[in-house]
């Protein structure tokens, strides 16, 4: 099923998935660097298709619309300040929240939408993890770049924030492993942006990490790490 999911980006971008597949894919793609890049590309392509169908609407539509937006409240923007405030408030109880506040500010400043209707949701989701009461943050060590993982058992999710990662190579991707008593669990496959940064969120699926690690793997993913551990952090 997971393998199938990676092949749904094109049909998804054309709104050609039925309800259940759409939901499944929407749960998957924001945390899959490959699928989210594909969705964004295919949506740009679909927009060009839409341009071949342009038709001017009736003239009175604009008047009715402008009247309606005059009385329609806009949603709040994602404000870095607001998130820092929340994190600062928690800092009183836990010193490690200071790191989290910085991480939250850095992430939220660049959190955007993953295309269309994901806008608010992906932003809110990241906020939720970063400011969760039980959020923990752990820097990963190694020479491949800078990375930290913030995770929240109550949200059952993690956010990986990384910078200065090199291109993993053609047909290759990085994989984040949650290491628990049972060994390494693959939690997410990703590729850094052109500027070497990564911001993705992942599901914990109820697992409690003892360590987090990153390896370089084939972009189809691996069940167990096959490459050397490039970055690792152990929970003290």
């Amino acid at each position, binding site marked *: 099923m997971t393998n199938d999911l990676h092949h749904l980006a094109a049909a998804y971008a*054309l709104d050609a998935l039925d309800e259940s597949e759409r939901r499944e894919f929407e749960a998957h793609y924001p945390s899959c660097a490959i699928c989210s890049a594909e969705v964004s590309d*295919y949506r740009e392509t679909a927009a060009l298709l839409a341009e071949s169908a342009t038709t001017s609407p009736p003239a009175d539509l604009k008047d009715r619309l402008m009247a*309606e937006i005059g009385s329609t409240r*806009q949603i709040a923007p994602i404000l870095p300040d607001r998130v820092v405030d929340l994190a600062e408030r928690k800092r009183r109880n836990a010193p490690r929240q200071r790191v989290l506040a910085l991480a939250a500010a850095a992430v939220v400043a660049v959190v955007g*939408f993953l295309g269309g209707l994901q*806008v608010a949701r992906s932003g809110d989701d990241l906020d939720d993890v970063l400011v969760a009461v039980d959020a923990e943050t752990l820097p990963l060590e190694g020479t491949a770049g800078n990375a930290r993982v913030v995770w929240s058992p109550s949200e059952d999710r993690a956010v990986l924030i990384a910078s200065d990662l090199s291109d993993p190579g053609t047909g290759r991707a990085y994989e984040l492993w949650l290491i628990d008593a049972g060994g390494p669990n693959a939690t997410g496959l990703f590729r850094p942006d*052109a500027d070497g940064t990564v911001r993705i969120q992942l599901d914990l699926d109820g697992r409690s990490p003892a360590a987090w690690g990153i390896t370089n793997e084939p972009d189809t993913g691996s069940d167990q790490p096959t490459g050397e551990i490039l970055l690792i952090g152990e929970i003290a």
Partner: protein
Amino acid sequence: MDRVNPLSRLKAVGARAEPASEADVLAGLLQRAGRGDQAAFGELYDGVSALVYGIVLKVVRDPSQAEEIAQEVFVEIWRLAPRYDANRGSVKSWIATVAHRRAVDRVRAEQSHRDRNDVVGRQLERDHDSVSELVLDRLDRTRVLNALDILTQDQRAAVELAYFGGHTYREVAALLDTAEGTVKGRIRDGLIKLRDHLGVNQ
């Protein structure tokens, strides 16, 4: 590193008195609309209303319904404008996504009210029309239509029935009497070809 802040690009463009690209102008308007600027939103509407109404009409067919949905789409865009982030995709891509999704959801909600057995028959009728319509479409509107020519007939039929017809790939498979996996593959191959041909790239 490769990432350009669209705002700074707009400013730089202004300083050098070069014409700003359409995409930059739309991004600037949406950004202003996100701060509650209704005049900017009105200008944005002028820039993309034919795109929104056109794709909605293509999917739902009925002009008065298309108008109603187009209005809903623009209200949604107004509401969500404060969260728009230019780093994640173009304004047109975002707006076309919202419009297409809403049109498709409407068509499917109505379909689910109908008798299931009836649906397939009606769809078949409807889509025979739609296919011939598409074939008869004048191919001179944009480079996109030319680009569609690079697709195989099978790929083109799958992409157009899905996107313009508003069908799921499973429905497209039923309409074309082809295996679902095959149709899924044609949609994917077709979009990849179009993407590469049209120079869409992250």
